[in-house]
């Protein structure tokens, strides 16, 4: 036919040539993208949908599955333990996120470019971030152990034995938070200290000449300029802190009682100790919805305090 373009023509118009290259690229794109599209489809998209499906079933690891509709979600809402688990997770988040941000922001401001050996601090603080979380937890089990470093220092200096941090419901969550801040703040420290390096030195000097002291310079010059980094760091820290698992699993196994059981620990227990995969999937989706909600709130709220140039 006349409109058939497959026949080679001696004078190829520019648009036609672009058109052919687009088609060529598409074939290559299929090859280049194939592995990751297939992998993401099989190992991320499909499981995400399956998580939703499984949450609607009574789904034991072995045996018959029955459709229960929203039954699993109703059971979670009515379960006092699940309610406590959500509260525990929120308590962890409320303690951990501000502490992490304040410590990392404060230290990043303190360890300014003027400080000698700055890279040593960066390396030191980053080691626990990169170390296997299980190894970190082992170290802190030793720290918190009666007779461990904290206890023996307290006994030698004050003559008082410390409470058994991990065995008392009053201190267990706090102990987990302290360990988590120690392990995690190096990440935000690096984010903040990189952001502070971008603050123009002239502006800080100008503020100093105008008589602003260190705290004022930080509050009125540095802080407004690094709000995008603070937004990035708080959002990421918030998201990951809702997913806390290894610390309570390894330090307290959720105890004493259920005092430190968190959402992911609940998912693990339901799924792999009690073999209720449907209920575990539902709890996982509750976590997902909470995380999405928090992220949405963060993004909606950022207009008020985040300044992009």
């Amino acid at each position, binding site marked *: 036919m006349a409109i058939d373009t497959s026949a080679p023509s001696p004078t190829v118009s520019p648009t036609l040539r672009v058109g052919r290259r687009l088609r060529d690229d598409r074939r*290559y794109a299929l090859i280049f993208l194939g592995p990751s599209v297939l*992998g993401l489809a099989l190992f991320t998209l499909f499981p995400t949908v399956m998580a939703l499906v499984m949450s609607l079933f009574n789904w034991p690891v072995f045996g018959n599955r029955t459709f229960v509709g929203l039954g699993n979600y109703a059971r979670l809402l009515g379960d006092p333990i699940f309610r406590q688990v959500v509260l525990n997770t929120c308590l962890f988040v409320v303690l951990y996120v501000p502490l992490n941000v304040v410590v990392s922001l404060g230290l990043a401001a303190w360890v300014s470019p003027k400080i000698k050996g700055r890279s040593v601090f960066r390396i030191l603080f980053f080691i626990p971030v*990169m170390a296997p979380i299980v190894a970190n937890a082992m170290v802190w089990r030793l*720290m918190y152990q009666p007779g461990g470093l904290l206890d023996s220092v307290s006994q030698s200096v004050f003559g008082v034995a410390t409470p058994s941090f991990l065995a008392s419901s009053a201190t267990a969550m706090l102990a987990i938070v302290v360990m988590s801040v120690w392990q995690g703040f190096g990440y935000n420290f690096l984010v903040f200290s990189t952001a502070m390096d971008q603050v123009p030195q002239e502006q800080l000097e100008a503020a100093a000449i105008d008589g602003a002291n260190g705290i004022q310079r930080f509050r009125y010059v540095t802080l407004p300029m690094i709000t995008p980094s603070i937004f990035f760091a708080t959002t990421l820290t918030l998201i990951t802190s809702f997913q806390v698992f290894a610390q309570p699993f390894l330090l307290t196994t959720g105890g004493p009682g259920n005092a430190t059981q968190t959402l992911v620990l609940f998912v693990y227990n339901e799924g792999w100790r009690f073999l209720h995969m449907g209920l575990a*999937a539902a709890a996982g989706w509750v976590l997902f919805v909470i995380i999405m909600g928090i992220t949405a709130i963060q993004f909606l709220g950022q207009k008020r305090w985040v300044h992009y140039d």
Partner: protein
Amino acid sequence: MTDALTLARRRAAGRRRGAGLRSVISHFLLVAVALLFAAPLLYALGTSFKPSDEVFTRPPTLVGSELRFENYIDAFRFAPFGQYFFNSLLVAITGTAVVVAVSSLSAFAFARLRFRGRELLFVLFLGTLMVPQEVLIVPMYWLMQTLGWVDSYQALILPFAFTAFGTFLLRQFFLTVPAELVDSARVDGAGPFTIFFRIMLPLSRAALAVLSMFTFIAFWGSFLWPLIVIDTIDVKGTVPLGLTSFMAQQGTEWNLMMAASMLAMVPSVVLVVLLQKNLVRGLLTTGFGGR
């Protein structure tokens, strides 16, 4: 006149001396903070060389009465740490290879190939980053059961080797490669594969190294997924699983446990020191953070 000048000079000098003193105090306090922060690690390191009966001494000691290097050998005798380390290395190295191969291919497509729906697909890619691992583990375990992969190496490697993080990181880097370079290669008749292997990959060595190291560390430290999918810890277990099972069985051998923990940290410490300048770029690579 001269009086005013000397006065001003003296004042400036005083301010400098004040600043100098403040700087000394600031450095001193910072060293104290650093020591406080490092104390758990130093204490654990010291404990790993102590005889068992000196772990809980009062007052606490950093170094025991003797340095028992044998602790590190004993740890391997008490538990199959050799197997754990072999498994971890195998999984981390293979996993890293898969991640780097797959994500560099797709990053090239997003950065340099033109096809309809590219932007939409990229947004979809980034969207998968929102789904937390904890939502995926339940159906992923069922998938492993269905495939017959429970308690296997491929179950440790493949499920989390397809992440959009690497694609995103490398795409950003590929975009910085000058377009003229690619265009002139095209004019010379080079196809996408030639451009990818001959131009993009050699120019991106730094980014590839950063991605590899962070991916390696993520596999090395991974805990929740191996805990779920591995049944025979002494055969297929990774180092974190081995540490956990060692703690459950030999919970009182603190010096050996610290020795094993210190060994587990070695790759992390080495990579942090190697990465130094590139740590910041790596921050984007993986979902590190609060964990």
